[in-house]
């Protein structure tokens, strides 16, 4: 089998009955042609259909005339202003390129050669054609529900499933531990920590306020060398003490901005 033979043997004329055959079925009716186009599963499928219309073995189709038929078809569709899916146009462009390449003298041809491209196209068409035939034969087999029927009302094989449960001692005891652990009342142990009580803070703040009439920042009432946790407690207690003194009218509070330092001073009795 030679390349040239494959490509150019039997250049079947795009016979009237072939190509015009389709068009004749729907010469002007746009919808009909559109539907026809819709019926193809993509450009390769359309090509295969056109190739089959050459009424020769797929191995000896003329790629050149196939290209012409395809391009004619796309032209017609465009003339009818049908919207063509992009892949049909891509195929058309590629085929137009293939055709022009095939018409060039051999020495000017590029790589891959148009013969190679054409042969591969032909091989693809053969493969698609083979699968299309296989699908038809497959569908023609003795299909259940169409050609052969299963028993309408089978008794069914009754299998009475009896369950034997599995569990071991450890799983049992662990489960109990889990329940107990989950539901045991939570006991929170609070570690003893240095605190300044509200009473001592009240004493401390009112005593210290007694020595001056100026504004004093709350922080200055805290014990200077206390460890951080006592300091935190003292800050809280002193703050509450300051509020209490203000409530009793013994001190006034002032804060210039949010989160800013809090100042207090004695209200002279």
């Amino acid at each position, binding site marked *: 089998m030679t390349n040239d033979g494959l490509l150019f043997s039997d250049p079947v004329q795009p016979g009237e009955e072939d190509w015009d055959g389709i068009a004749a079925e729907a010469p002007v009716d746009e919808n009909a042609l559109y539907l026809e186009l819709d019926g193809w599963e993509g450009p390769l499928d359309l090509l295969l259909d056109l190739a089959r219309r050459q009424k020769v073995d797929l191995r000896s189709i003329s790629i050149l005339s196939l290209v012409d038929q395809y391009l004619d078809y796309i032209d017609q569709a465009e003339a009818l202003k049908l919207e063509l899916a992009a892949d049909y146009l891509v195929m058309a462009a590629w085929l137009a390129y293939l055709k022009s390449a095939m018409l060039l003298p051999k020495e000017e041809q590029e790589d891959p050669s148009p013969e190679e491209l054409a042969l591969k196209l032909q091989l693809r068409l053969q493969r698609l054609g083979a699968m299309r035939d296989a699908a038809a034969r497959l569908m023609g087999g003795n299909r259940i529900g169409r050609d052969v*029927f*299963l*028993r*309408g*009302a089978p*008794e069914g*094989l*009754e*299998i*009475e*499933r*009896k*369950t*034997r*449960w*599995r*569990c*071991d*001692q450890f*799983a*049992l*005891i*662990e*489960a*109990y*531990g*889990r*329940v*107990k*652990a*989950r*539901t*045991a009342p*939570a*006991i*929170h*142990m609070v*570690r003893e*920590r240095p605190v300044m009580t509200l009473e001592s803070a009240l004493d401390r703040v009112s005593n210290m306020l007694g020595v001056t009439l100026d504004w004093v920042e*709350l*922080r200055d009432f805290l014990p200077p060398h206390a460890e*951080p*946790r006592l*300091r*935190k*407690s003292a*800050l*809280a207690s*002193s*703050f509450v003490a300051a509020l209490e003194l203000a409530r009793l009218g013994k001190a006034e509070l002032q*804060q210039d901005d*949010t*989160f*800013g*330092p*809090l100042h207090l001073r004695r209200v002279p009795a």
Partner: protein
Amino acid sequence: MDALARAVEAALFAAEEPMTAEAIAGLLGDAAVGDVRAALRQLAEDYAPRGIQLVERAKRWHFETAPDLAHLLRREKEQLRRLSRAATEVLAIIAYHEPVSRAEIESIRGVQTSGGTLDVLMEAGWVKIAGRREVPGRPTIYATTPEFLEHFGLASRRDLPGLAELRATGLLDPVEDAYEELMGGDEADAAQETAAHDDPEIDEG
């Protein structure tokens, strides 16, 4: 085998319900009812020694498997399944607290217990109903069975480890002690924050 008998055979095989000879004749188009009847009798005879029988009941015909083979077609299959976590917990509670009502089980587990769980345990043969508690509502109370002790390799319920032992093995460990550790490291710069900002944090301590 004659064509009509083949057709009658296939029609009855594919039918979803028993069919009268008339219905079969109707299905097969131009068959005479008498011929269909003859075919049915012939088929019934053909099948008599086989594992499948063609039988007539109330004038309607159908295929069925031979009655003497029923035992082969209905079999018990034992399936081993792991007890679910919930069921294991319920079983453990019953074992440790029996006799115990469902409400008591739920209060110990801290979650609702589906009736299916108790059914599974009773089906397994490990739990039985042990009467009713003589309190308002007379709730059913549950207890373990001798099969339970046998399955779990216990001579008696006293063999179940006590709470002290569970605690020793760590099975009763409560929530982590991590909390204390988290509280330990107090950042020094906390004190520099303003009172207003610190306030809520202090209360948490």
